[in-house]
């Protein structure tokens, strides 16, 4: 999952300081692995260099980085593109998909849209596997089935998430 894009997405709802960004990230997405400050600052300086964020103000005082960052138009475009692009179906996608759904809700985008597009991408692969299964030998069928059940699990989780979007929206955007 891209930390840079996630931080950008968090910035879209308003300018924040580096430490504030880290806290927001950890609260929402950092369950098992909170960010290090170093990661935040190196990511932010990369985003700054690429013109995706700009410095919106500097706080006076001590401490490592007192810069306040704001997202630029190019940054918003990158977030929009990331959210509208389905993920290549592969195992253990859920943390990326979860991040995308939460960010879509936070930034007022249509999360159902994201889910429909991702389902479509999954189904494309599932159709290929189903076709292979129909024409293949038993061993191929079993291998395809394994992949199909995993992809289906992703989708069932997506459907369940879709059904709970209203509730999730209230939690991420109280």
């Amino acid at each position, binding site marked *: 999952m891209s930390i840079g894009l996630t931080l950008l997405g968090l910035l879209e709802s308003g300018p924040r300081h580096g430490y504030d960004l880290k806290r927001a990230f950890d609260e929402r997405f950092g369950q098992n692995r909170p960010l290090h400050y170093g990661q935040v600052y190196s990511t932010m300086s990369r985003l700054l260099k690429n013109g995706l964020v700009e410095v919106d103000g500097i706080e006076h005082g001590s401490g490592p980085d007192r810069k306040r960052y704001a997202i630029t138009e190019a940054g918003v475009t990158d977030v929009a593109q990331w959210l509208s692009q389905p993920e290549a179906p592969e195992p253990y996608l859920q943390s990326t998909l979860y991040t995308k759904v939460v960010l879509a809700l936070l930034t007022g985008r249509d999360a159902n849209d994201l889910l429909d597009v991702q389902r*479509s991408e999954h189904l494309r692969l599932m159709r290929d596997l189903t076709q292979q299964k129909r024409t293949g030998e038993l061993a191929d069928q079993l291998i395809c089935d394994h992949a199909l*059940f995993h992809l289906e699990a992703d989708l069932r989780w997506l459907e369940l998430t879709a059904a709970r979007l209203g509730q999730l929206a209230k939690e991420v955007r109280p």
Partner: protein
Amino acid sequence: MTPDGALLTAQDLRKAYGPTPALDGADFSIHPGEVVAVMGPSGSGKSTLLHCLAGIVRPDSGSVRFDGRELSQMGDAERSALRRGEFGFVFQFGQLVPELTCVENVALPLRLTGVKRKDAEGRALEWLERLEVAEVGGKRPGQVSGGQGQRVAVARSLVTSPRVLFADEPTGALDSLNGERVMELFTQAARETRAAVVLVTHEARVAAYSDREVVVRDGKARDMAGAV
């Protein structure tokens, strides 16, 4: 058929039960030989869409055209002749007639269009064989398993060689192995006869037998082909 070759099209369908709309401007189209999965959350209007397309439910407004003919302009007799002759149906729970044997159930749609008993039952038996349940032909629906009954219902939907097959959760009551076998036999038969299949399902592995999917949400239908 319409200029773009679609066999069945719907435009701007609206249907309300009481104050809340079940369909709120839904469009749909399907070509001969195409299998389209209709997906979407529970209560979003999938079955209502299928029922309007099949002429079972009359929409409040909007148009449904089958093979160039507008369903709303047909009389009741013409519409039910269309349903009997050109459409086939499979629902989640077979809905077989309990008093008839399985062969008689499968032969019934043919009998209703005037085919003689012997011919009708001969063709019914062929379809039961294809669906791998010839052995239950002489039994009543109450004496066969759920999976066998569902295969009988699929045979019944195919027996008239309909041009459109409507299936609403056809494998909903089956385990994965039976469900997939039924989908395999069903879609293969449909492709051979160039029937169009409108397949309502919430299961991705079932939808994977389709050519494309349409997502119904809040009474609107979104064609996902080319959406990615």
